[in-house]
Every structure is written in C-alpha cells, then in structure tokens.
C-alpha cells in the first residue's frame, strides 16, 4: 500500500519518491452523472437521467508501466482519465498518484501529470508556437528553453519550422493532434494520460507518436495510461491492458494473459486475436456455443446482443 506523505508547498521542488512502486492507485472509484429533472413548469415531464460512468473501479499502475484502457464509446474511459487529471471529483473511492490524493492534494498532482485528449484543444487562431509557449510558461518553462524543445519535438513529429508560426486552424486535424501531443511531451510529466491520442493520425504519424511514448518511459521514467480504440496500438505499446465496460473493469492483464483467458473461456483451439479479446469482454452477453449455433456465427450473435443492449439503454 502506498504511504501517505507530507504535502510539499508551492515553494518546494516536487521530487517523486524513487521507492514508490505504485504510480497510480485507484480504489473503488465511482462517478455518477445526474441530469436533473425539470423544475421549470414548461419542462415538466423530463425525467432525471442517471449515468453511472465509472462503477467501483480499482486499478494499480506500477511506476514506468504503460497501461492500456480499452472500451467501447461511453464505457467510462475518458471519465476515469478526467478523474486522474483532477478535472472530475469522484463520488466515492480514492485515487492516489505517487502517493498524493487527487482531490486533497490536487495542486501537487497537477505538477506530476499531463494529458492528451482526443480533441486537440487549442486557441485555434494562435500558432503552434504561441500555444505551446503559453503552455510551457504555465508549467514554469522559460521561453527560450521552451522554444528549443518545441522545435525539436515538433520536428520529430514531422511538423516543419515554417508551420510553427501559422494559425492552428489552418492545419489538418492530424497535425493539430501532433501539436497536442507535443504539448504534453514538452513538460515531461511523470504520469502521462493519453486519451485516444492517435485518433485521426495517419499510420506514419501513429508510429512517430508510439516511438515518443516509449521514449518518454525509457528516458524520462514516465508512467503512461493510454486509452485507445486501436487494438494493434494497445498490443504494441502496453505492458498490461484493462478492458472497461459500462464503467466497470471487466478484464485486466497482459496481452498474453487476456488472450489465454479468451481461448480458455471460448474453448478455442488456436490463439485469440486482440479483436476477439475486446469483443469477448465487451459483449453484452457471454456468447456460448448455443448462441453461435442459434445466430449462425459469433459475430452475428455479438451484434444481436449489442442491439438488445442498446434497446434496453
């Protein structure tokens, strides 16, 4: 269990305890969103909507580990990332990052993390350089040092120096996403939260980003939590994978362990693919031999149960 430590003040430099083996400890975390019912007379009839986005999730991420979080759209991946990013306060449970509580020690945690989200959020009228210099100054990087790092990182991601001064709105989505990734790498966080970072990138750019992610772990000792829909990427990058469905972690292990489990549960004679692993654990219903026989194939049975689930929701 992670040891609680005294809180450093803003005046003290933050040193992550080298003995701390758990980078992230998530204990029984739940987050429920409520859309209140109507209180205005002309809106009466609208019912209160409750969404259990994260449901008693527990997870331990070791220092220098790259862990993938896979799940369908709306499964709770991004909510979990937002909780780790101090942008959401959980309703119950506890999250510690290098021993610091994300709610109580929020200011300290913010010095340890950075995040890349699926949408490249920037001041789109400003250039990549202006946006990144702004971000760098917030993270206490001097302007000159930041400029050098920005040119180096963006150069490696294939963005030429000539484009650094053009407005971001003139760049493609993929290019904007690269700038977003550069923003996170710029501050060399000890915990990097990547929420579908390569969505919209071409295959070459994806490889560039993956190389960077590995390098961040090797050179900067970073721990990385990655959510993605790209199963190949997850397989290539992650030490362990957590599969989340309807707010709950339904599977956790190395790629090999998850595949073995699927082979065992489905009684397959050959190795399972990541696609099968994902489909198996996120299926609305555990598909049996009987279901396969009834619907004609595993895929058809899967689709039928998904349709039923959507209808219920």
């Amino acid at each position, binding site marked *: 269990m992670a040891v609680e430590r005294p809180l450093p003040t803003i005046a003290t*430099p933050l040193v992550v305890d080298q003995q701390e083996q758990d980078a992230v400890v998530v204990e029984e975390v739940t987050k429920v969103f409520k859309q209140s019912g109507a209180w205005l007379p002309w809106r009466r009839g609208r019912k209160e909507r409750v969404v259990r986005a994260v449901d008693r999730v527990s997870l331990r991420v070791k220092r220098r580990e790259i862990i993938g979080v896979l799940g369908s759209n709306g499964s709770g991946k991004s909510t979990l990332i937002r909780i780790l990013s101090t942008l959401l306060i959980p309703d119950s449970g506890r999250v510690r990052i290098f021993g610091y509580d994300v709610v109580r020690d929020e*200011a300290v945690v913010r010095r340890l993390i950075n995040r890349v989200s699926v949408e490249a959020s920037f001041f789109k*009228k400003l250039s990549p350089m*202006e946006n990144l210099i702004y971000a760098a100054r917030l993270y206490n990087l001097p302007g000159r040092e930041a400029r050098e790092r920005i040119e180096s990182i963006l150069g490696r991601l294939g963005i030429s120096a000539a484009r650094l001064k053009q407005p971001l709105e003139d760049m493609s989505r993929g290019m904007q996403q690269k700038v977003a990734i550069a923003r996170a790498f710029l501050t060399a966080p000890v915990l990097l939260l990547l929420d579908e970072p390569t969505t919209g990138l071409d295959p070459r750019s994806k490889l560039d980003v993956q190389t960077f992610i590995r390098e961040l772990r090797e050179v900067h000792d970073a721990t990385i939590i990655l959510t993605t829909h790209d199963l190949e990427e997850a397989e290539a990058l992650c030490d362990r994978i957590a599969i989340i469905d309807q707010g709950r972690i339904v599977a956790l292990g190395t790629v090999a362990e998850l595949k073995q489990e699927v082979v065992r549960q489905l009684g397959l004679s050959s190795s399972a693919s990541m696609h099968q692993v994902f489909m198996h654990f996120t299926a609305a219903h555990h598909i049996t031999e009987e279901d396969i026989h009834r619907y004609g194939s595993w895929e058809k049975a899967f689709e039928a149960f998904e349709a039923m689930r959507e209808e219920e929701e």
Partner: protein
Amino acid sequence: MLLTALIHRGRATYAFFERNWNLTKRYWAWEIVWLLYNIVNALSVTFIGAAAEQITGAKVKFDTNSLLLVLVIGTSVWSYLSVTFDGVTDIINMERWEGTIEYTFMAPISRFTHMVGSCLYAVAHGLLFTFIQLLVIAAFFHIDLSHANYLSAIFLLMLGSISFIGFGIGAAILPLLYTEKGMQMSFIVKAVLLLVSGVYYPISVLPGWMQPLAHISPATYVLEGLREAVMQGRPLWSPEIWSCTWPLILTGLISVPASVYAFSLAERYAKRAGKLKRNG
C-alpha cells in the same frame, strides 16, 4: 525555494497576458469592430448633450460644457468598465469557446495566478480602448478641461478597477456553472451595473428601491469621483474625492476575496458535476 515559486507565478501570469495579447492581434478585425462600436456609441450619447438646448427648447442659456463632460465621463467609464469586465469574465467564456478550459484548469498554477494574469490584461486593454475613444471624442467636441485634476481621475479609475475585477470574477462564475447560458447571464450583470450606477444621470433620479443597488456598485463612486475631479478639479485629499475613495476601497476589499472564494467553490462544484467538460 520561495524565489522559484515566485518566478513560476510571474511566468504563468505573463503567460496569460501574452496569450491574450496574441489573441487580440489575431482577432484584430473584431477589436476594430468593438472599438468603432464603442466610439459611435459614445459619440451618439455625447451628441445628445450637444443638442440639449434644441431638444428641450430651453429659453435660457444652457451649460452645455458641463452636460457634455457628464456624458463624456459616463461613456468613457462605461467603455472602460465594459472592456475590463468582459476581459475578466472571458477567464471562462473564451476558454469555453476555444475548448481549452480543461487544459487551463489542469495546469499546475493557482486560480489566483490565473486570474491575476487575465485581469491585468483586461485592465490594460480597457485603458487602451478608453484612451482611443477619448481622443476621438475630443476631436468632435470642444470640451473645457482646464479645471481637470488628472491625478485624482487616474487614481479613482485605478482604484475602481480593483472592484470591477472583483465583480468580473464573480460574474465569471456564471459561464463556469452554466455552460450554454452563462455568457448571456454575465451580460445581464453588466447591464444592471449600467442601469444603476448613474452612468448618464444622477442616481437620485432612480426609483427609491433601485438606489440601494447604486450604492453597492463601484461604478457609482468612480463616476461621481471622476466628475468631481474632471469638472471641479478636486484634489486627492478633498472630502469629495475621499467620499468616493473609501467606498471603493471597501468594495475592492470585499468583492475581490469574496469573488475568488466563490469562484473556488464554483470550480469545486463544476468538478463534481462534470461541468468543465463541455465547450460552449
């Protein structure tokens, strides 16, 4: 250690100032539109003063210069208040519009540093707008400023800015909590200040129930004090200026910490309810 923390705060404060300046440069066409709008608005109000004799059909000689000064001070303070107030409420509005709010709230800086950087720019921006507006108005009307005490005027404007910032931070809570309608709600706060603060008329003409609101508004004291300083040439130490100074000190001392505290509560609520996620 303390020096490191101070450098970080200074750097972050500058980051907000620089970012807003860069945005002003990139949105230059909008800046010109708003500047022209403010100038035309100020001119049209001031022309009412110039035409007072004709409008009222007054038989006796009218003190047009005084009326013009009342209106010029009113339009200038209103312009300054508007630009500064908008700049402060843009702490949230702009971030929602651009979709950057989560990144700013995730950065390792205190909300106070965030606000100081944004507010400093808002004040500088407001002063520049008002100065240009005054130059244009001065070219249209021959206003006698021979009695003006500029030191008192600048002092009151700066002192009043602190309270404007306090009210602006308070109004910035609205777009933080109401992702879609918050911006319009903050306009209402500004409009109420315009109505009750005696921008173009003495507050004594307001209905009795409205007058207590005028006494809460810092703009009331800025306007009264500026009129005393510019039209009567009152020095800083005069009782007339002091009667406007102490309420401004009081509203500044109350509004800034109260608004920052209320903002921190609102931020916490927004993080519980997931209000930071959605962009406007």
